[in-house]
C-alpha cells in the first residue's frame, strides 16, 4: 500500500482532483501501475458480472502491436476503404466508371422523360404538333453535341395516346436516341451495380 496506489484508486474513480494530469503521467510511465489499475478495474467487472468468460491478458498488447506495426495514425478525415490491389491507372478508371455510367443513365432518363411527356396539340399545328415547351426541350437535346457532331433534327412527333412515335423523316433524332441506349448498354453490361438500360418505350393508355 503506497501513496501512489492510493492516488491510482482516486484517479480511476475520477476523484484525483487537481493532480489528475500528474497522476495520469505517472500511470502512463509505469507499467506496474498500469497492471495494478487493470486489477482494480477487474474487481468492479467481476462484481458487476462484466468479466468475459475467457479473458486474454495480452489483448491490449496485441492491439497496440498492430497499431505500431501498421504505423497507424489517428485520422482527421473519414477513413476511405481501399478498393483492392491493382494498377493505379486502372483503379482510377474503375473508380470513375460508376460516375460516368450514372451520368449516361441520367442523360437517358432525361431523354426518356422528355419523350414521355403527354402531347398537347397547339392550335393551328394540326397532327404531329407539339406543346411549345416540349418542343423547346427536345430541340435543346437534339442540339447537344454527341459523338463529335451536332445533330440537328426536326422534331415532329406524332402522338398516339401516351406513346410517342418518332417518324421516319427524323433519322437524326433516332440516331441520337440509339446512341444513348448503346452507350448505356456498354456500361450496364460491365457494371453490376447499374440498372438495366431504360428502354425508350411507352404504353398506350388507350390499349
Amino acid at each position, binding site marked *: 500500500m503506497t501513496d501512489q496506489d492510493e492516488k491510482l484508486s482516486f484517479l480511476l*474513480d475520477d476523484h484525483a482532483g487537481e493532480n*489528475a494530469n500528474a497522476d495520469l503521467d505517472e500511470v502512463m510511465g509505469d507499467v506496474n501501475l498500469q497492471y495494478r489499475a487493470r*486489477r482494480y478495474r477487474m*474487481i468492479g467487472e467481476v462484481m458487476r458480472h462484466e468479466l468475459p468468460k*475467457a479473458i486474454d491478458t495480452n489483448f*491490449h498488447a496485441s492491439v497496440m502491436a498492430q497499431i505500431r506495426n501498421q504505423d497507424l495514425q489517428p485520422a482527421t478525415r473519414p477513413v476511405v476503404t481501399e478498393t483492392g490491389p491493382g494498377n493505379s491507372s486502372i483503379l482510377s478508371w474503375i473508380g470513375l466508371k460508376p460516375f460516368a455510367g450514372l451520368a449516361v443513365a441520367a442523360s437517358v432518363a432525361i431523354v426518356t422523360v422528355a419523350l414521355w411527356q403527354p402531347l398537347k396539340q397547339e392550335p393551328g399545328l394540326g397532327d404531329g404538333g407539339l406543346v411549345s415547351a416540349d418542343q423547346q426541350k427536345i430541340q435543346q437535346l437534339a442540339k447537344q453535341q454527341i459523338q463529335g457532331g451536332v445533330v440537328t433534327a426536326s422534331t415532329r412527333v406524332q402522338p398516339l395516346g401516351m406513346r410517342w412515335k418518332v417518324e421516319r423523316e427524323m433519322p437524326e433524332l433516332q440516331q441520337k436516341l440509339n446512341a444513348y441506349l448503346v452507350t448505356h448498354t456498354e456500361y450496364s453490361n460491365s457494371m453490376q451495380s447499374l440498372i438495366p438500360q431504360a428502354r425508350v418505350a411507352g404504353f398506350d393508355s388507350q390499349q
Partner: protein
Amino acid sequence: MGTSLLDAELVKRVQAGETGAFDILVQKYQHKVINLVGRFVSDPAECQDIAQDAFIKAYRAIGNFRGDSQFYTWLYRIAANTAKNYLASRARKSPGYTIDVDDAEHFEGESGLKEFANPESLLLTDEIRATIFSAIEKLPDDLKSAITLRELDGLSYEEIAEVMDCPIGTVRSRIFRARDVIDKELRPLLE
C-alpha cells in the same frame, strides 16, 4: 459511474500523438467491447479479432472524436457496427440462437462463447472470479459496503459519504483499502 474526465484527458492525449494513452483506454474497455461483440459472434477467436478491429478503427478515427458524447458511447457504436458488418459479410448467425442482427446487441442472454474455447483462459477467469468474491466476503463491513456502493451501485464518493454518514476522505480511504486487500489475493494469479 462517471469516468468522463479521465477518458476525455486520455482521448486528448491520443489526439496529440501519445499512443500510450490509447493503451490505457484499451485496457479499460477491452472486456466491455469483447462482451458486446460476444453477443453477435459465438466463436471466441473471431470475437477477439473483431474486438481488436474495433479498437483499431477507433484509433484511426479518434481524430474525428469531438467529445459530443462519452468516449465509451462512441466506442460502443464502432464495436457494434464492426460486429454487424462482420455478420453481414459472413452471413451467418450465432449457433443456437436465431435472433435478428439488429437485436443482438440488446440480447442479455449468454455471452455465446463456446465453453471449450480455451481451457487455460477459462480456468484463469474462473479462478479470478472466485478469488475476488472470496476476498470481498472476508472484508470488514465498512470496506465491503464502500466498495459495493461504488462498484455495484455506481455511487459517487459524495453519495457514498451521505449513505454511510462519514466524510468523503473516509470513503476514499475505505474504497482504496478494500481494493488493496482484494488485489493482494488477485495479483499472484495475473503475474
